[in-house]
């Protein structure tokens, strides 16, 4: 009923919502004028934009609960937002909804070195946790590329990874407890400071739920002893196939490197141009294989890794001499995105996971797609865990290019599913990959995901329209699909 009213009269709805929120929040915490709310119109996926009805910036947990209770009573959608660095549009506002910014929840509640945990509010930046733990010789392991800006709340919402997750796991594996509120405004806890909690293990549902099941305000993370030493082996290969085979051989040899990354030739060239790391520009692919731990461990693992890489056709091998050189090896990989930004006005970063053994096949398929869509693509790859990040280069000012780029991306995702993989390894579904969800999951499976959503949020008010496509949407996408990706009336905007 509220929805019907609001659709007819957004201005009246806005007045009603602002008035209700003013009962529970200071005026300074409520933004509703266009010039105030415009800044919140998108997250890291800038292709999708929507100005929210209202933005609130609560300062206390009581205020968060009160905002949720108020919105629940009025039937207003709530979109929680951290730093806004997400890459799938998970924090895209709802036209008739409240964007709940948790930016003010940026306190480090405590670092307990004896228990090796940190309790932080959701708005604390990923890197700030490791910085606070550093005096104790500890750190927080997951290190997404955006770690200087992204917040732990967003990391929990997306189950963020990073370059070290083969050995140290994803956010899920490094979080003990998540505290927050339900859509109704009730306080709720998932996990505990012990290693498990009673009942069904709901932490894996909350982690990666993209703000659809609960609003997170505080996270307890595990801290690990910082490895005293890390060394990186950089190996060149004459073909992507050889590099892929070397990755499999490293794993088969019982080695779990701290990081195992692959860059293709074009990515290497772009990165070299940007950071001058000394990459081998003749190589078809470069592997970065990092080992960390005690000096003895590192020496043993580096020696074994080099043997395996040589035996698998590495044409050139370089081992980081010191920390400065190690960081240099990584600088190109870590700057893959800005380096690509220099090659093209825009790029779309894809994110899918495939079984490692299909890597070369996937890169060949992407080459064919480049011709098909007349767009260039550069590739970086978390080779250790099969997570692929093709960067499709395009010009967003050209609607035809944007459209081809989206079709290109969708085809990569579908190829990933065909190869036994998944449409997102670490960036989430958000709004970007709703159609691809229809390809990966059956109607019954999607219905169960929708039921999980209802179990946590019966009124469907938390971040509605994200992650789980409606069955109607899937039916429409399926119909378009039958025509082999070539749509009738391609000039019509559809996505």
């Amino acid at each position, binding site marked *: 009923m509220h929805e019907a009213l609001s659709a007819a009269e957004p201005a009246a709805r806005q007045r009603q919502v602002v008035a209700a929120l003013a009962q529970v929040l200071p005026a300074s915490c409520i933004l509703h004028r266009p010039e105030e709310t415009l800044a919140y119109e998108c997250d890291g996926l800038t292709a999708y934009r929507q100005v929210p009805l209202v933005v609130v910036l609560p300062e206390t947990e009581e205020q968060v609960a009160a905002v949720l209770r108020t919105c629940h009573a009025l039937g207003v959608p709530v979109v929680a937002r951290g730093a806004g660095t997400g890459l799938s549009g998970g924090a895209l506002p709802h036209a008739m909804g409240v964007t709940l910014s948790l930016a003010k929840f940026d306190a480090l509640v405590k670092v307990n070195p004896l228990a090796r945990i940190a309790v932080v509010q959701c708005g604390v930046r990923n890197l700030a946790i490791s910085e606070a733990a550093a005096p104790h010789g500890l750190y927080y392991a997951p290190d997404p590329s955006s770690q200087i800006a992204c917040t732990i709340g967003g990391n929990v919402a997306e189950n963020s990874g990073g370059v070290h997750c083969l050995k140290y796991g994803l956010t899920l594996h490094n979080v003990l407890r998540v505290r927050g509120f339900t859509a109704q405004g009730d306080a709720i806890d998932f996990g505990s400071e012990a290693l498990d909690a009673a*009942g069904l293990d709901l932490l894996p549902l909350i982690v990666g739920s993209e703000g659809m099941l609960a609003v997170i305000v505080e996270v307890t993370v595990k801290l690990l002893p910082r490895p005293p030493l890390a060394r990186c082996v950089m190996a060149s290969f004459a073909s992507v196939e050889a590099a892929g085979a070397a990755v499999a051989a490293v794993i088969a040899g019982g080695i779990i490197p701290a990081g195992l990354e692959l860059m293709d030739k074009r990515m290497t060239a772009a990165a070299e141009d940007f950071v001058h790391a000394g990459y081998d520009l003749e190589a078809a692919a470069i592997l970065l294989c990092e080992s960390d731990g005690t000096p003895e461990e590192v020496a043993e693992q580096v020696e074994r890794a080099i043997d395996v890489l040589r035996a698998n056709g590495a044409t050139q091998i370089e081992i980081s001499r010191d920390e400065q050189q190690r960081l240099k090896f990584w600088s190109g990989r870590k700057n893959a995105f800005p380096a690509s930004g220099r090659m093209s006005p825009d790029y779309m970063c894809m994110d899918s996971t495939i079984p490692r053994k299909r890597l070369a096949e996937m890169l060949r398929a992407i080459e064919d797609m480049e011709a098909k869509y007349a767009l260039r693509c550069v590739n970086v790859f978390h080779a250790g865990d099969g997570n692929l990040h093709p960067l499709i280069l395009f010009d967003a000012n050209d609607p035809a290019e944007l459209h081809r780029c989206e079709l290109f991306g969708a085809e990569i995702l579908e190829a990933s599913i065909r190869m036994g993989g998944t449409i997102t390894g670490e960036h989430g579904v958000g709004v970007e990959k709703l159609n691809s969800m229809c390809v990966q999951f059956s109607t019954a499976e999607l219905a169960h995901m929708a039921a999980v959503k209802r179990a946590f949020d019966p009124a469907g008010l938390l971040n509605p329209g994200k992650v789980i496509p409606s069955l109607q949407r899937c039916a429409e996408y399926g119909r378009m699909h039958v025509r082999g990706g070539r749509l009738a009336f391609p000039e019509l905007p559809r996505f």
Partner: protein
Amino acid sequence: MDAHSADLRRLADQVVTARDSSTALEIRGGNTKAFYGGVPRGEILDTRPLAGISSYEPTELVVTALAGTPLAELEAALASRGQCLPFEPPRFGADGTVGGMVAAGLAGPARASVGALRDYVLGVSVLNGSGETLTFGGQVMKNVAGYDISRVFSGSMGILGVICEVSLKVMPVTPGCATLVFDIDEGPALVELSRWAALPVPLSASAWHRGQLFVRLAGARSAVDSVRQRLGGTDIDPRTASDWWQAIRDHRHPFFCLAPADLARGECLWRLSVPDTTPPMALPGERLVEWGGAQRWLRTTAPAAQIRDAVAARGGHATLVRAADKSPGVFTALAQPLMSIHQRLKQSFDPAGIFNPGRLYAEL
């Protein structure tokens, strides 16, 4: 699962028949864990026809097995390629199955260093309460497509559906291993364990019992060798040490063996899950401490309320693992918003309430 489509169809038919007649089903594999959780009841749904390793590629670090596969068969297949299930699931008998392992969600001595069973679940195929086959997750390491429903089946006690097939992340067996023993009281042992855990040492497992602390190191050979000298303690020969850890893992150590007479006089085995820095708990009974202090076993006749209150005060929870009388509830009761979510999840997966009723909570 294609080779087993007829077996799967038979199980799905049994589910549909049970749903239509509101008959409770007791999902059963090797029947080695009937003692765990609420008392089983209902018509038996036997998962053992769904047996076999569906795919195993050591270079992908992934194995997929049908639920009725004997755990021993899976572990032997992994061992033949130098790999393992690092979380060391306890084996309460020779017949335990992969499905039972996942449904119970238990982990052994290495839990604190390598993670829980749920951390290794990559995907599941299940039958829901309407007999539909659903697949969640997959066979790749990183997957955030939709909610991570597959991992919720870990420790679900079978209440959400019949686990038919599971994909698990596996890891290489570590090359170096050593076990050290220290004569030390519980309090100082807990302090030492916390201190060591903050250092870059390859700590793999710990167990304290009756004035002795056993510490297992596992990792690169050179790292294990250098650390064992620094920590001190007495070295145990590898064969003896391995047998000892297996006995802890599988509850064959005498501490865990409650005779019928012990149970009859009201003695229970409790599992206390607490923050690892919790000082020794002032509870009567005999203790065995694992996971650096995070898992504390207690043999006692003390009343359930006393135990649960003491553990709750520390932010933990207590599970009644073995007892003649389970009326206090096997698992710690949940706060209302959480129980409501449990009830709605149960309702959506199993609307007729036929799967393992009461195995997790009486309400589910």
